[in-house]
C-alpha cells in the first residue's frame, strides 16, 4: 500500500478554491519545464482536460487514444512520464504497460495509471507487475491532483 498511501491526502476531494488571477489562455504552450508527458486515454474530453492542464504547467504534451498508438509514440518521443488509462480499445492499458516494461529503455519510466474501472482486480494485477508508479481513480481526483502526483514523481 505504501506508495499509494502517500498520495492519499492528495486524492481526497478538495473543496473548490477561489479562482486565481491567472489570465493565461489555455491554448498557449509554455515549455518552461522541458519535460514531456504522454497521455494515453481514449476519452477525448478527459485527454483534452489533462492536455490543457499540463500545457499550463509548461509540459510538452503528447496524446494517444489507445495502447498501441501509445507504445509507438512513447518509443518515438521518449516522454519523461506517462498517464495511462486502463480501459481502451485496440490495446488496453494493462497490456501496454506490460509491453512497455518488457522494453529495456522504458522499464523504469514513471507511469501513472488513471482509471474509472469498477473492478479493482485491474488494480491488483497492475500492482503485481510492480510497474505502475501511482494509481488514481479519475472521478475521485482533480486534474490539479494529477499535476501534483506527476511533479512528485519527477521530483519537480
Amino acid at each position, binding site marked *: 500500500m505504501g506508495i499509494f498511501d502517500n498520495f492519499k491526502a492528495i486524492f481526497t476531494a478538495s473543496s*473548490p*478554491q477561489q479562482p486565481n488571477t491567472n489570465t493565461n489562455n489555455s491554448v498557449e504552450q509554455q515549455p518552461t519545464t522541458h519535460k514531456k508527458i504522454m497521455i494515453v486515454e481514449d*476519452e477525448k*474530453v*478527459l485527454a483534452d482536460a489533462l492536455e490543457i492542464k499540463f500545457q499550463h504547467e509548461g509540459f510538452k504534451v503528447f496524446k494517444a487514444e489507445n495502447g498501441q498508438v501509445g507504445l509507438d509514440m512513447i518509443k518515438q518521443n521518449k516522454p519523461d512520464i506517462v498517464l495511462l488509462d486502463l480501459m481502451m480499445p485496440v490495446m488496453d492499458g494493462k497490456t501496454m504497460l506490460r509491453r512497455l516494461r518488457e522494453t529495456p529503455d522504458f522499464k523504469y519510466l514513471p507511469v501513472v495509471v488513471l482509471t474509472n*474501472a*469498477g473492478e*479493482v*482486480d485491474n488494480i491488483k494485477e497492475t500492482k503485481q507487475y510492480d510497474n505502475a508508479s501511482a494509481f488514481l481513480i479519475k472521478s*475521485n481526483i482533480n486534474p490539479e491532483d494529477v499535476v501534483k502526483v506527476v511533479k512528485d514523481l519527477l521530483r519537480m
Partner: protein
Amino acid sequence: MKENKNLIVYIFPAIFISVFFCGLTLIAPKLNFYSFVLPIAFLVLIILNILLYIQLIRGQMSRNISEVKPIIDKDISPAQQDKIKYEAILAYIGEGLVVIDKAGRIITFNKAAESLLGWKEDEVLGRELTEVIRIDYETSINESKLTRSRQSSLYFIRKDNTKFPAAITTTSYGVGTDILGTATLFRDITMEQNIDKMKNEFISLASHQLRTPLAAIKWYTEMLLKGDAGKLLPEQTQYADTIYSSTQRMIDLVNLLLNISRIESGRINVEPLPTDLKKLVDEVVQEVKIRYADKKQTFTTKYHEPLPTIAVDPRLIRQVYINLLTNAAKYTPEKGQITINLSKNDTDIISEISDSGYGIPDADQDKLFGKFFRGLKTVTRENEGTGLGLYLVKDIVDISHGKIWFKSKEGKGTTFWFSLPLSGTPAKKGVLTIEA
C-alpha cells in the same frame, strides 16, 4: 371387481331414471287432473337417486381403504414405515445426496444425484466414492472485456466427462464417537455463477460508464474555478461551485454503491492488519472537522488506556468511522458537540460516537440500517444523504465479526456504538477491495 362396482354405480341411476321416464309416458295421459304431480315426483326421484349415488361412492371408497389398511397395519413395522418415508424424501429432494459407509463405498445415491452426475443408482452402489464423484478444481479466468475476475471453483465431473460447478456440504454420521460414514449434499451452481458474473459485469460497466462523464464534469468545473479559462465573475464562480458540489455528490453515490456491491458479492478482500484504532479515529476526525469547519462543532475524543492494537482491515474500519462521524457532523447543528469514545472490555473494543444533534425519530429507528433509507426529516434538513452510509457500515461491522447498535432521542441527540472483537477479524481471501 372394482371396475365392475364402478360401472354399477354409474349405470344404476341412469337405468332407474330411464325406467321412470318410460313409465311416466305410459300413465301421463291419465293424470291430466293432477298434472303438477308429475314434475314433483320426478324431482323427488332425482334427489333420491343422487343420495343413493353418493352413498354408493362412499361405500366404495371405504371399501378401498379398508382393503389397503389391513396391509399397512399387519405387514409393515414402524421402522420399515420410517424407512419408506425417508426413502421417499431422499429420492425427491432437489439436491444430490451421496452417502458412503466407513469403507468409502456408496450406500445411497438419490434421484437428484443420478440426474446431476449421469450415473444410475444401481451402477454406483457398492463402488468407491472417488470412482464416481470425480472432482476438478478449476481456476477459471472469466475473460469478459470488463471484468478479469478469477474464481476458484469446485467442479464435479459427470459420467460423460462433462463438468459443472458444484456447491457441496459434507457431514459425517455415526453413533457416539463411532463414525459410520459420511453424507454429501451437492447442487449445480452454474446459474448462480452466471448471475454473479453478469452482476459483476454490470457493476463494472455501470461504474465505468457513469464515472467517466462525472469525471469530465468535475475536471472541467475545477479548471474553470481555478481560472484555467480566465477569471470568473463572482456569480459564475457560485454557479460553478454548485455544479462541482452536485457532481461530487453523484460521484460519492456511485462509489458507495460500488463498495456495497463489492461487499455483498462476498468477494471482498478482508486483510486484517494490526491497527491502532486511536490513530485511525484521530485521522478521520481531522478530515471530518475540515469538511464541516463552517459548522464550528466541537469534537472530543476519549481513549481508554491502554488500548491494544487489533487485527482489523483498516480500510474497512476507516470507512465505518468516516460514515458515522460524517453523519454526526451532518445531523448536528452549528456549534454542536460530537464525542468519540474508545473503550474495551474482556472481549471487544467498543467505539462510541455520540452527538448533540437532531436525533432519530422513533418511527425511523428500526429501518435505519436499511438500504436507501432516509428519514423524512433528514431529507428536509440535509440534502446530501444517500441512505446507503449506514447500510455499508452495518455490512462492514458484520464481516468484521462485530456488532452495531444505537440510541437516539429526537431533539436530544444520537449515540452509535460498534464493537470489534479483540480476537480480530478473520482474513478473507477475495479479489476486490473497497475504495476508501
